[in-house]
């Protein structure tokens, strides 16, 4: 029996330990680094890393030493300068795209994306993607610039991520956010609330339960309507925006964005895919799939999301057609009888 343990089981246990060691070491690595780099008493400025934010980034899984591989036991007392991987080491394709743009003359990757905070596109609310753009491009100046050619420039800039138009993504998808009334004033604005605010409203059931009544992590049109009609949630609304479906760093303005066809002439078919983005405790967002075509509902599906040309409702089209045809009854019917009785008026 002892022989079995020594000959078979022990090597297996050791093998498993070795197999999982890199992962555990990586995790230990980040935690170990953050003991100092997550402590405001120890470091400050760019050396300070918000641990909960870093954990939500795609980079967290890589650990610290993947990018900072020259770190050694002497750190921070050693003489060696800490090495940094460049973004292009991994993001070669996006980097090449970016280097072709004018932006590359003014901003490095790190100027827009803090590698310790950057999140994947689907972990963002939607409009918050503009935070990077607004570091350099002030909103009033951008509204003035776009006003020269873009109808309702203020609306577009207030509701859309810049990259919906200014990247080479070939498609887009709709993202809905729960927005909350800011105060009790008449005509008060609705803004994106943080996790804590929505958690207080939703209680123990969780934020998703505000809309996802059956808890299946899928939002149906019926659930959207129930949310929008629920008087209990009268201070909450659903704001919609459009985000690129592909990540691209080609920041040029394409012709189909300039002549409005990319969004407004793409037809209801382009409005099929939509998501609800709800905030997580860690500051990121998770996207929940919404029923196909829900944003095309005539009234209560998404009452505040309407895009001319694409979100037209088929039922409204039919009602409109009936009304217009009703206007033809008089000329056609009366005209026919008038023609048949024309002899009676020949005096």
């Amino acid at each position: 029996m002892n022989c079995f343990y020594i000959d078979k089981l022990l090597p297996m246990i050791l093998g498993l330990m070795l197999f999982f060691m890199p992962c555990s070491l990586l995790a230990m690595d980040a935690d170990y680094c953050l003991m100092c780099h997550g402590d405001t008493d120890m470091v400050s400025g760019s050396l300070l890393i918000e641990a909960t934010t870093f954990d939500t980034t795609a980079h967290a899984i890589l650990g610290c030493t993947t990018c900072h591989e020259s770190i050694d036991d002497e750190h921070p007392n050693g003489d060696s300068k800490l090495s940094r991987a460049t973004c292009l080491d991994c993001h070669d394709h996006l980097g090449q795209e970016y280097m072709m743009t004018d932006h590359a003359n003014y901003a490095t990757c790190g100027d827009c994306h803090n590698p310790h905070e950057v999140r994947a596109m689907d972990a963002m609310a939607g409009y918050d993607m503009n935070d990077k753009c607004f570091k350099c491009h002030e909103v009033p100046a951008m509204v003035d610039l776009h006003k020269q050619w873009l109808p309702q420039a203020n609306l577009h800039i207030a509701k859309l991520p810049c990259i919906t138009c200014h990247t080479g993504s070939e498609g887009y998808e709709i993202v809905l956010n729960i927005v909350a009334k800011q105060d009790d004033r008449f005509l008060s604005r609705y803004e994106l609330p943080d996790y804590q605010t929505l958690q207080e409203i939703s209680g123990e059931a969780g934020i998703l339960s505000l809309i996802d009544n059956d808890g299946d992590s899928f939002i149906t049109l019926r659930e959207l309507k129930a949310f929008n009609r629920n008087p209990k949630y009268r201070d909450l609304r659903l704001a919609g925006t459009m985000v690129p479906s592909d990540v691209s760093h080609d920041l040029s303005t394409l012709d189909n964005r300039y002549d409005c066809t990319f969004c407004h002439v793409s037809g209801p078919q382009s409005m099929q895919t939509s998501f609800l983005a709800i905030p997580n405790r860690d500051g990121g967002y998770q996207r929940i799939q919404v029923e196909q075509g829900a944003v095309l509902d005539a009234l209560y599906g998404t009452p505040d999301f309407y895009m001319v040309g694409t979100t037209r409702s088929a039922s409204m089209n039919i009602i409109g057609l009936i009304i217009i045809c009703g206007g033809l009854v008089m000329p056609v019917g009366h005209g026919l009888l008038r023609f048949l009785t024309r002899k009676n008026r020949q005096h």
Partner: protein
Amino acid sequence: MSENKKVYLQPTPVRIWHWLNAFGIITLTVSGAQIRFPEYITLLGNYKSVIYLHNTAGFVVAISFTFWFFYYVFIARSMANLYVPKVEELKTGLLRQIKFYFLTYFLGWENPHHPTPKNKFNPMQKSAYLAIMFVLMPLVSLTGIFMTNVEPLRGVIVMLGGLKILMNFHFLLACCLIAFLPTHMYLTTLGHTPLEHIKTMWTGWEEGEEEVSGSEHIGTVSTR
């Protein structure tokens, strides 16, 4: 006893307003159709151009509507008399006019209403124009103003139920106005000649006959 006489039925400001309005509404109809169905309708250029055209035409129609309103209320001072049906007109005049259009017209009877500058419209016209000029036109203009200023007026739009309700309301109101166009154009052909009423709206003068012994209101009458 009666004699043929031309009646000056449509003053110049009204005629200018009418044709401006007509041109504006046709532009709004075609551009509105392209805005709603851009994959199928491309008559007026690219999408951006058609949005600008629709907004401009809407602005022109709204301004001309305002001028029309102030002209009749403050200059001609005949808005209520021309456009608001009197009780008697609703009680008997409306039925009489319906009977004419849908029965006695086909028998060759004369129109019971004889337009004068002070009483241009028959009770049916008054009722229709009351709904169109005092309900449909202001509402479609107002919803259009909201649609072109979504961001500054977002608070009000939310209070009204949301962008989608407002947009659908604008669309259905526009459909009602469009539905009126074929009826309106058809009724203009019911004069002595098919083009008589259209000529009147162009020149201001309508062929009529004066009953010498009549009062002022019925002194100048058409032979319809």
